[in-house]
């Protein structure tokens, strides 16, 4: 069953507006938080074990405590550049409950002592941008933002900044570069953004869902939050399910929920007569799970890691047997090739190489060496670059080729490839 905590009131259209939001206990958490000490909030978030929902799963409270004790202005940035293929949870959160995000951001900003925050929103989300802009305006009008918020003495300003559609700007340092007006390229770490981020000031970058979850922690307290989820991955999470399921969409379930139940109970399973072939559990960068693994895995950070994959942004892409994995890999490689920023050599050249290889495998002009080469190239791109894009391109290749080797080799030995296409793929009517 779904556990609706964040998404509790998403079905109510008035929740979008400030009045509607206030009707359902809105901004009470802010009032409560402003009576606490900033360190107490950070401690609460740490205790609650809230892990970053953007992809890496780094504990948010720990990240906040990395901020150096100096006089520099601290910035809070909300990462709403939701670019991971298959992910669409942030969009729904912003569209349906912008004030939830804003409240969470003000509380977080209060906790880290930041006078200024930015929402870096994906360029394509212009509708969401309008909604969030309107919400910020409302918040300013009601003294929820600006100087001396609710007469607490805490001042906070918020701005929204639209990206230009680059996937890499969802990476926190890439986002900061873009926000600074530079080319959206990740920066070298160290120094980490918490020490030297936006304009060389300490900066905290958190995902929309992470920041919104802060309101839940304040409302329910540490124990209330930890009631859901597992010991190491507490809380609930939104999963964006897409692909060959009957009812795709966003589903909020506690972490540790079996993937099998998400697919077959919540999403209504696969189409008639089709078999589950594979599942990408955490956005396109996550290694793929084959049907067997997918049926047994629980959706939390640890269990997925033990299966060699990752939770990532929680984008579950369900693949049934009407799809060719080679074709799918080509589509993914096309994406990563297009989105590589071109800074680090292994990624810049490697993504292009992977695309060319998967193209030639798909077209049947490749041989078995090329399949091996695909793996070799990917394994040498892994963990070699500034940001994780090169890993994100390499993981699918490695998992696709190792878990669906027969399919790749059948393409590489051309006749069988044609046979595969004829029997498996084209027998289905697409769509």
């Amino acid at each position, binding site marked *: 069953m779904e556990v609706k905590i964040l998404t509790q009131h998403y079905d109510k259209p008035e929740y979008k507006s400030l009045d509607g939001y206030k009707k359902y206990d809105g901004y009470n958490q802010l009032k409560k938080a402003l009576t606490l000490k900033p360190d107490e909030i950070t401690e609460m978030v740490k205790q609650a074990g809230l892990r970053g929902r953007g992809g890496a799963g780094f504990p948010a409270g720990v990240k906040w405590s990395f901020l150096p004790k100096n006089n520099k202005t601290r910035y809070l940035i909300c990462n709403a550049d939701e670019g991971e293929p298959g992910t669409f949870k942030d969009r729904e959160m912003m569209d349906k409950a912008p004030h939830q995000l804003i409240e969470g951001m003000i509380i977080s900003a209060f906790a880290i002592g930041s006078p200024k925050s930015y929402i870096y929103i994906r360029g394509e989300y212009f509708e969401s941008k309008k909604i969030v802009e309107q919400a910020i305006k409302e918040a300013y009008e009601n003294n929820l933002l600006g100087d001396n918020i609710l007469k607490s003495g805490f001042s906070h300003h918020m701005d929204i900044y639209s990206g230009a559609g*680059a996937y890499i700007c969802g990476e926190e340092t890439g986002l900061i570069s873009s926000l600074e007006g530079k*080319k959206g390229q990740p920066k*070298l770490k*160290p120094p980490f953004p918490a020490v030297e981020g936006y304009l060389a000031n300490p900066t905290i970058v958190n995902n929309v869902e992470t920041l919104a979850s802060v309101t839940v922690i304040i409302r329910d307290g540490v124990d209330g939050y930890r009631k859901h989820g597992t010991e190491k991955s507490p809380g609930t999470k939104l999963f964006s399910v897409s692909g060959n399921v009957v009812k795709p969409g966003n589903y909020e379930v506690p972490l540790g929920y079996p993937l099998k139940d998400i697919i077959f109970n919540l999403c209504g399973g696969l189409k008639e007569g089709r078999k589950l072939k594979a599942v990408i559990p955490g956005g396109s960068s996550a290694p793929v799970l084959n049907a067997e693994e997918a049926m047994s895995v629980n959706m939390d950070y640890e269990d997925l890691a033990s299966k060699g994959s990752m939770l990532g942004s929680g984008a579950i892409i369900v693949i049934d047997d009407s799809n060719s994995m080679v074709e799918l890999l080509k589509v993914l490689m096309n994406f990563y*090739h*297009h*989105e*590589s*920023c*071109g*800074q*680090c*050599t*292994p990624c*810049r*050249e*490697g*993504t*292009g*190489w992977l695309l*060319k*290889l998967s193209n*030639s495998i798909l077209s049947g002009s490749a041989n078995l060496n*090329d399949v091996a*080469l695909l793996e*070799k*190239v990917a394994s*040498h791109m892994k*963990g*070699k*670059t*500034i940001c994780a894009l090169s890993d994100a391109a390499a993981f699918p290749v490695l998992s696709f080729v190792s878990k669906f080797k027969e399919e790749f080799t059948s393409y590489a030995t051309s006749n069988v490839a044609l046979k595969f296409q004829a029997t498996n793929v084209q027998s289905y009517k697409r769509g």
Partner: protein
Amino acid sequence: MSGKNEDLISCSVNGKTISVPKNTSAIKAFKIAEQDIAHYCYHPGLSVAGCCRLCMIEIEGNPRTQIACNTMVTEGMKINNQSKQIKEDVQWGLDFHLLNHPLDCPICDQAGECGLQDQYMKFGQYKPDMNQKKVKKAKVVSLGEKIVLDSERCILCSRCVRFTDEVSKTHELGIFNRGDKSEVGTFNGKELNNDYALNTVDICPVGALTSKDFRFKQRVWYLKKAEAICTGCSTGCSIYLDYNEEGFFRVRPKPNEDNNSYWMCDEGRDLYQHLNKEKRLVKVYPSKKVSTSNFAVSSSSSSSSSSSSSSSKKAIKYLKSELENIKDSTKIGVLVTGQYSVEDYKEFFSVLKEKNSINQIYHWFDQKNSKNDFDDLLIRGDKNPNTKGLLEVAKDMSLKVIDSSELKNTASNLEILIVLGPEYKKFFSTIDEKLEYFKQALQVFYFSSVKLDSLDSISNVTQIPLQSLVERGGTYINYKGLKQKLSILPQVIPKILSFSQIAKVLNGEKIQLEPLFLKTQPVKDNQFSFQKN
């Protein structure tokens, strides 16, 4: 970097224990420990970009490999790059670099001093797996008056971009597009024409940026490099002069932490032209007055340069006799630029002082530039490399230094004006003004290594050729008192007198003229023999 012990930390590089100053990056520690490490984007004079991903190292206790350029050495750190894993990573890193590299080494000017060639020979895997088509990009793009860009050869190390951002602060360059379509280029309407632009050619590890001036002139393996200093201004940058039997071909900055760090200005790169035959004063041009006298006949009868030594010897002997005739030392003027070495000044002045009791010199300083002009990087307003040395020598010899503008009043009284002329007429905007003074003096003896055409029309000037600065050698003192010694290089024009020889002739001593032909180089070895595995 202070030498205090508490600032030093010890670490181990490939098992070799060294002590390095605090805040040293691991790649510097490798250099200090003299261990090989592959790298492109790292340059000691620029910020760390960390994008070539070649300087991979293993740190003991850290499961992930790191890049050396962005890792700071800590006390007791054990780093190495000898493991099989790292070597394979570097091999693949190089393969990634070469993936879309056109390999047009035969046409590329960088071949022979190319980072890709050198490092592939050292670290590469020699069995490329690439079997796909390469990405095509723009070739032979002119980036301005000085530089040509070849985007295909570019490995996007971003050194040039960082140079224009951090050193020259002109921000002309940027990297455009994404992924493997990335290209270095200039921003709209801008050209890479700043005063330091050619440094980008030096720091480019491949042949993506090439200098229009040097392009296709020579293959670099034909060139020998000699250390020298630039005499284009009072900064006195350390440079390499590249030359061979055919002459001098280019000037590159030599890293010198005390003075010019890794850079030099573009003006100074013209230095080599002044050393080559084409711009040199190769023989004596006697004045109309002395052309009938004894020495001039021989020089005019044989205009070949081989006789220039004997004719300039004669010319100096003539100068000596003329000087002896003048009893009043105020009738003798000595006009000096700050372009000669300390030794030259000493030898020349001591003879004049001894023989003719000269007690004052005119200092020719280009008034167009203020002495204290400085562009906050390297270029200084004082276009003489040795103004400080000249003033010091004059002080030591208790010679009075008078500004050359005084000649306006005194020139007409002078019977002999000896000029140690400028070698860089480009920087001497007031030459024409000086020529007016020359006309007023009775006789002018003009010493220089560089031909000044406008002197030919003045009837009372005798031009005597000198060895060029790298043929003379000597010590130069720059603006901040840094003494730099120039080593002596082979002569481009044979049988031209040096300053010490001139001084000897003036002193009445006999000189032995060694026929100093340009030293022929030993037969070069085949430089393409390398050991495969």
